[in-house]
Structure formats: structure tokens, C-alpha cells
């Protein structure tokens, strides 16, 4: 295992939303800060820095991860997906994002990135979730604006839509 020196910066390289990125970080730098302030990927938000609010949730090597509980140096060589990687293109929203907009499932939008990441990750392997499953999944995210129910509605609607479009694809 590489031993990092506390007072020097170390090079960190990984794949961010399919593109390779590189920066320098002190061993103590959090991944959330690295993403935001070194790479300018400010879509991942920081709400508590103790793993309770879920705003900074991202996907690291296929695992849902709190960026605020991860050191930048830990993800050297990893594949990382953040909210910036969700939309199919800069001017179009994905199915899940559209469902959020249609159902008023966000207000200030600060917690939204983390919730989208959890849902995107979950729906990929659970195409037909129940409301209880969605509520359970999202119980690790705090939202102070919406009262949550529009988020649940949007998630279920997106799941149905994703399932039916997959159905169409496989029928075709």
C-alpha cells in the first residue's frame, strides 16, 4: 500500500462520468471537496460532512458512496459517476430527471443530486420497485423542502417509464 505524506500533495486520477480526470490532493482532502473545488464538478453538494444528509451521494465503482466520508486519495483509479453524468446531453434531461421536474419533486435542489444518484443506481438493478422500497432506499437522504412524497411519486413514475421503454426496446 502506498504511504502518503500528510503535508504533501499527491496526484489522484480517476474516471469521472466516463472522462479521465486528474488533480492533486493532500491525503486529508475529502472527495467531496476534491470534486467540487479541484475539478469544478459542483453538482455534488455538501450538506453535513458527517454522512447523515446524503446530499453528496455519488457512485464509486458501482457502489453508492458518500463523497464526504471518502478521501480523494481513496478513489485513485476508480470509476466515478456524479449528477453531471445523468443527462443524455447538456440540453436534455434523462427519464428520472424529467419525472422529478414533472412531479415538482424538488424545490431548492440542494439535496436533489444525491437523491438522483441513489435512485439512478437503484433503478438500474430494481426495475419494478414498490413505494415502500423507494421510501426505504431514500431514508438516507434529507430533504427539507418537498415533504418527500413528490420524490417518491417521481421515482415510481420514472421506474415505470424506464421499464416500459426497455420493454419496447426488447420487443423491437
Amino acid at each position, binding site marked *: 500500500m502506498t504511504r502518503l505524506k500528510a503535508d504533501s500533495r499527491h496526484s489522484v486520477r480517476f474516471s469521472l462520468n466516463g472522462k479521465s480526470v486528474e488533480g492533486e490532493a493532500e491525503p486529508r482532502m475529502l472527495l467531496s471537496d476534491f470534486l467540487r473545488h479541484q475539478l469544478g464538478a*459542483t453538482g455534488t*453538494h455538501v450538506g453535513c460532512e458527517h454522512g447523515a444528509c446524503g*446530499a453528496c451521494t455519488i457512485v464509486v465503482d458501482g457502489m453508492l458512496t458518500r463523497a464526504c466520508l471518502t478521501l480523494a486519495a481513496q478513489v485513485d483509479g476508480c470509476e466515478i459517476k456524479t449528477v453531471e453524468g445523468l*443527462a443524455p446531453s447538456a440540453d436534455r434531461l434523462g427519464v428520472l430527471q424529467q419525472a422529478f*421536474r414533472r412531479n415538482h419533486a424538488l424545490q431548492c435542489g*440542494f439535496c436533489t443530486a444525491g437523491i438522483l444518484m441513489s435512485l439512478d443506481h437503484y433503478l438500474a438493478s430494481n426495475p419494478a420497485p414498490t413505494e415502500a422500497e423507494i421510501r426505504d432506499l431514500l431514508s438516507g437522504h434529507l430533504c*427539507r423542502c418537498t*415533504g418527500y412524497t413528490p*420524490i417518491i411519486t417521481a421515482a415510481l413514475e420514472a421506474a415505470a417509464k424506464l421499464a416500459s421503454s426497455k420493454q419496447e426496446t426488447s420487443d423491437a
Partner: protein
Amino acid sequence: MVQAAVQSANSVDQGGERPWVGRSIERVEDAALLSGRGRFIDDLGVAPGTLHATILRSPHAHADILSIDTEAAKRLPGVAAVLTGEDVKAVTTTLVVGVKAPVECWPIAMDRVRYVGEPVAVVVATDRARAEDAAELINVEYRPRGAVVDPLGALASGAPVLHDGFPGNLASERTFRYGDPEKAFADAPHRFSIDIRYPRNSCTPIETYGVVASHDAGEDAYEVLANFQGPFSIHTVIARALKVPGNRLRLRTPPDSGGSFGVKQGVFPYIVLIAAAARVAGRPVKWIEDRLEHLAASVSATNRATTLAAAVAADGKILALDWDQVEDCGAHLRAPEPATLYRMHGNMTGAYDIGHVKIRNRVVVTNKTPTGLNRGFGGPQVYFALERLVQRIAIGLGLDPLDVIKRNLIDAGAFPYRTATGALLDSGNYQEAVSRAVAQGRLAELKAKRDEARAQGRLYGIGFTAVVEPSVSNMGYITTVLTAAERRKAGPKNGAQATATVGLDPVGSVTVHVASVPQGQGHRTVLSQVVADVFGLQPKDIRVNTEIDTAKDAWSIASGNYASRFAAAVAGTAKLAAERVAGRLARIAASQLNVEVVDIVFAKGFVASKHNPENRIAFSRVAALSHWSPGSLPDDAGQTIRETMFWTPPELTPPDEDDRINSSLCHGFIFDFCGVEIDRVTLETRIDRYVTMHDCGTILHPGMVNGQIRGGFAQALGAALYEEYAYAEDGSFLTGTLADYLLPTTTEVPEPEIIHMETPSPFTPLGAKGVGEGNCMSTPVCLANAVADALGVADITLPLVPARLAELVRGAEPPPPAGGAAVAPVREGDRRLRGEGQALVKGVPEQVWAMLLDPATLQSVIPGCQRVDKITDTHFRADVTLGIGPVSGRYRADVELFDLDPPRAVSLRGGATGALGFGNAEGRITLAPDGKDGTKLTYSYDAAIGGKVASIGGRLLDGATRVIIDQFFTALARKAGGGAPGGGFSLFALLAKVAGLFGGRR
């Protein structure tokens, strides 16, 4: 219309040719927020060379600062400045205090700290981590004083006094009398009374505070970017504190803000602090608050002790109210406090027709975080007392609570209705609203359910609440805290100036600018609807900017996002501004189309003749004319490039000579009822159904209105069931993380059944009233009434956590049996930690004794120890860095040995302090031969811990203590040359623990 509104509320409504206002269109804000392109304050770049600040905060609730040693911090590479109270005082002046008293209010402690978390020093460095490193090197010497956290306790004789200018901690006292309450009470057949303690809580936005400030020494002018929410009356407070005229404080807000709910009003003392730091450092300074700072020391709603009595007729009609309110504003009376107490002053009779009212209002200071704006602002505290009392009246008279509510509701024909205390309720039909809610919300079904549940022995209850929701505050209501004579001297204050600017550019596209400072509500979308309707355009044609720049934009002291003023005041003002521009455009078009102005209509992107729609001209062409050819405009048209409208409602007059105050412009009506079931075993409260009827006047965007209701409901549910900013008796803050301050999550929040009725306000341009705060007022007491009904108890205190209900139902918990575990469990609120234990170490007692007294050995075996200094043979100092849970920091420990009995026993006494906490401990260690060339150590300790570390839950603390002791023994055993970990205890395991935990940070 209501039906359409409800149907469209849950999805989008984009098509057709109906007016845009009243429809749930997609929000223009959402695409960026959903794809990570929001522009919150910490997402924006800063000028090269910008420095970063961190704040060292008090671990004590009340203490004198004897000395602050910043030398080591200043020497750390990268540190540009360290400011203490003295340095801040040199460049600023005290914040104004809202009552007449010789009291100062600084954003940083001067020579005394008065609450846990109060700023003591600001460190400015090249990056945040370095600033935090430096903050750990600051040594502050405190002399603790007695603390008081209870509002009634603060008034008791002999209570510690926080400010000499507030004798006995009383910051303000006023009594009021409306009608003839004494006679009403004397004549009434019944009198009911209730004592209430409303707790502290906060709406805690997920984005914390942020400030970026710079100072131009040449012009002595400040530029500040902050996620401040208003009211901009605070701009005057900040400018005054920074000792510059208003035109030398340029305050801007970022495009996006991550929620506020009132809370981000409280960033203003930090604006002063960071601006002062920027001035001292000579460079721009940025500060982003962290969550632990936010919970401990940002701002809180007020807690309040209330006694409310009612004179009541036999049929349940309330004849008079007698209020006695003691408002707890925390350690400093910060602007605009004591506004929480007076915001509701016109509405102290709620939704009821009550002619006689007596009020005694006292404001006290205690050793807790200063208070400020929070969603509901005064409403939760008032309605909890009033609506609990209504239920008690019903029970006392053997009536149905709903019948008592109905008997007292203001008559539908009485609007506009002047309340006894001066509010002018604009419109409503409360009877109709209640009857619709009862029918549509299926109350009968809920009652049958209750009967059935109770027959099965289950705990099921139903609660009711009727609430008037005030919105659009009168900027003069706070002056009700002054006497009429004082007001005459100070000059009148009143009104609620709203502003809106509509601009047309050279290609005729429309821009709207307002000073409403949204924090996620979707103002840009609603304004695009409002203005699109006026110009016959589509919302997508209207670009709305809601950033504010006080150097360039139209604003007033009333600007900002508070008191639910957007829909009623700001959106209406935008409509008026657009109509003024449209009126001029109509004159231009009339001359071009050769028709009368009255024949002009704006529709589908054209300005046309009503009689002959073919006779038309493109909107953009008319709109651009003022740029390209002002000479061809009709003489009376004026310019159409930019129009700023100011609007203030004439109804908002100052308090009159008899202290009557129309504290708010609009008054929505809410009627809630709910069924709850309480688990007999766990005493967990489960909401079976929650019905909430709202009449907020004309609905501008049904999806957003329902979003406000749901959001308010969820926060109120948190306040009712989970959330409390809890303090120990000595002022230690106990809920310092989101693992201790519990916010409701997806698994706790059900969907409320929302019912609407629309009685437009006659006082606002669009007929809209505020809607954002109502459930924070109605829901906590509605749930409490239901729980009281389920348990059959008279006194209920929030939050309704199972432990509290258990005390109500089963009586207080008996003390645990003596003996038992080595480490006694730490109870919340009891920050003592006691324990005892044994350990085995290789080596005879003489050897172990020597090791325990040797600084070099100790330094190598104490976890996190940087250095140990031997002051005398029996006096040690150590620097220790420890982390417990999310809280880590450096502590300085000071330990003295006494009752030495070498090599058999020693006692030690010590204390430790650090940025994150402090503690004291005593312990005794005995060493005895184990019969196998080893030593058996027996130890016991008794410690007390305070400060930020104390805000971490007992379990974490306890666990961390064991780990540290274990690490110590392991290291000691290794050092002693023993293979087997056995351990000795050391003076210093105790020290490590004392230092680390007690002492330091826990």
C-alpha cells in the same frame, strides 16, 4: 376552478390557451438543478487570492475570557490574520438591538461568551484546512460562570445575569389590554387555563450559510456575496455595524440558495464578521459554515413559556383571552428580535371572534444560541397554546372540540374583520372551509375508526386545529414592542414596499427583475406566468432574474423572502409593473394600428385590435420601438424600456395609540384534522390520516402551493415528533449532529390530504395570500391534540418522542440499579461519566509506577498525544489530538497528582480544554503485585464534560472512551515489554481520557 387547481397540482399543465396564472407549469429552475448546474454560493468562483475563514467557537455556555493566545496560530504558514473580539471591535460597531436598553450585541465574543458556539476568534488562511489547523493552536483561557437556559429560570432571583443592561435577564416587558377583559373574566361562567412550554427547533436548510466579502480601502466600501434571504432592513444593520453608509455596502445574493425557511436571515452577523476579516486581511475572504456550526450556533426559533387563560360561556363561546408569554431569545437580542413575539400580535385571537384580550409579553435572554427567523415565525408558539386550550375547553365543558371551534369562528359575513388586537383579516369563509374539509376529508370515517380501535384497546386519537395564517408583514409591527410615546419619538414605521422591474430589450424580449430572493420556491417560474399573461406571451418568452445587488437593483427594507410575501406582494407588483408597460405599449400600438387604446389586446405574441384581430402588430416590434425610434412614439407614451414598480398596501398602518396593529396584510385560513395511533409498546406515534384545508386566496401555481404545504407539513411533523435543540442545564448543547437532531425522512412523512378553497384577497393585485408557513403553525398542535386525545392526558410537550410519552403514560423512569457495568451509561443532559476497571501490566509495581510518571513514556503511549510537559513532579501538561465521531480537535490537558503513595496508589485531578470542549475529572489508581511479577492496576474515575463534544450522543462518547483506554493499555503493555496486552492504567489513561474526552472534546 378549485377542482382544476387540485387536479393540475400533481403534474404539469402546459397546453391550451387559458391564462398561465393558476396552472402548474414546469419550473424554469429545474433543468439546471437536476443536472448539477445549480449556482449556489459555494459553486461560484472567487477572485484569485481569496482567503478562507474558520471560526473558533466557545465550548462554554457562559464564561469570562481571561486570555486568548493567538501567537502559534499566527505563525502557522498560510495564515493571513487571526481576529479576536478586540480586532473586530476596532473596525466595527455593535449590531443594533431591537429594544431600548444599554446593551451591545457583537457578532463575536468580546470578553465574555454567552452560549456554546459563540465565535471567539476568526482565522483567515490560504485554505480552509490551514485555517482550521491554526484555530486548533489558539489557546483561550476561560473562567466559567453559572449558566441559565430556562426562560422562567432566567427571571428567577439569583439567576446568572447575561447582560448588565437587561436587569434580571429581562430584555423587554409590555402589557396590553383590548376591550374589557377584566369584566369578561369576572362575568364568565367558566375559566380555563393552560401552561405551555414550546421547545426550540429550527428548519435547518440543507445548504449552510456562506459569505464572501471584500473591502476596498480606497473608498472604504464593502462588497458582500451571501446566501442571505432578507429582510433587507438588515442591510441597514450590517452597514451600521461596518461603520459605512448604506451605499458603501454592496450586498449581493447568488442565483441559487439551498433552502432557508427563515434561517438564512441569521447569516447577517457572519456577514459583519467576515467583512471585518476581509478588511483586516486586506484580501477577499470566504466562509462556508459547516453543519456542526450550523446546528450549534446559526440561529433557532424561539422557545416560549406561555400561560393562556380563557373566559368561556357555557356553550363554549370564548369571551376573553389572557396571555402571559415569556419569550426566550437566547444570548443576544439580534435584529429583528423580539419580532417572533410580535409578528402574531394582531392575530392573538386566531380564527376566532373574541372581543376582549389581555397580553403580558416578556422577552428574556438565556445562555443559548440567539434566535431569529424560522418558518411559522411566532405562529407555532401562539397556536400551540391557543389550540391546546380550545381542546381543553371542549373537554372541560363536555363538548366536541370541533363544535367549540365552530362556535368561535369569525362569521363569513364579517370580512374584512378587525381583530381585537388590530389585525384586519382580509377575506375568508371559515365555516364553509371547515364543512368542506369535514366532508372531503371524511371525518366521520376517522371517528368510526377511532371507536373501533378503542374498542380493541388501541391508543387512537383525533386532533383538530383552526388557524389564521398571516402573510406580508407590516414592517411596523415590531414597533409594538415600544410604547406609544416611544414610537412617537422614533417616528412611524409601517408598510411593506415590494418592487418589480420589467424591461424590454432592443429585440422586444422581456426581462423581469424582483428582490424576492427565492430559496427554492420557484419565483422565476411564477413571475414568468404572471408577466406572460399581461403581455399575451408564453412563460418561456419571459426571462426572470431574482439575484439581488443592492448597488444596482430596486429594493426596500421589506425586500426578501420572508413572511410568505412573494405571491401576495411581489408577484402582484410584477403584474402591476407589466401592466404599466403594457399600457404604454397599447398607446403605441393604437397609434400604429389606428384604433383606440381601449380596443387593444395582447394575445399570442401580438398586439391587436379586439374588434379586428387581423389588424395587429408583433409584440416584439412594438416592444422594441422605444429603443430604435423613440421619436416615433406618441407624446404621452413615455419610454417602454424599463419600468420599476413600487407597491405597498395602504392597509399596513403603524400601531395606533392603543397598540392595535395590523401586523400582516393577508390572512389565509387553515383547518386541519388528523387521526393518529400510538403503539402501546413503543409509544411511537403513527399518523393514520392528516387532512389539511387551505384557503390561501387565488392560487398562482397549484404544484408549488401544494409543495409549500407538503414541505411545511414535513417540517412541522419534525417539530412535533422528533426535533429539539436540546440543552443541558449548564448550557451544553446536546444535539450537535444530524444523528442527534433528528429530521424526518421518507419513512416518517406521510402524504397529507390537501384540500383547497379560494377566497381571493381584496388587498393584493392577484388575490393571492401567503401559504408557505401555515402548516408549521397548525400541524404541531393538531398532532399534539390528537395524541392528547389518544392518551387522555391534559399536558403535552413537544417533541412527542416515545420517551416523553412514556413518562406521561407510565410515570418517570426509575433510576438504574447500582453497580453493574464498569462504565455507567451517560444520560443525555447528564454529562457526567463515571467508570472503574482493572488491567494487568508486566513489571512489578515499582517499574509501572516509574513509567506512569515519566513524560516520555506517557507521550508515547497516550493516544493522540503530541507532547507531555512535566511542570513539577506532580503536575503535567499535555497536548492531545482526538477524534470522536465527526468531531476531532486538539486539547490541552492539565493534570495534578495528589495523595501519592508510591508505588501503591495515586489520585489525580485534571482538566482539559480545546476548541471543541472542556472537561474535568478526578480519579484514583492503585497498583498491586499480581503474584506473577506483574502489576494489577485498579482505577476509577468521575468526569464531567462540556462544550461541542458534549453534543455528541452518549453512546459515541462511551464507546470512544473505551477505545482510548484500551489503546492506552495496549501501548503501555507494549512499552513495558510485555507481549500480552494487559494494561496498566495510568494516571494518564485517565488523563488521555480526561484530556481527550472530558477535557477536550467530546
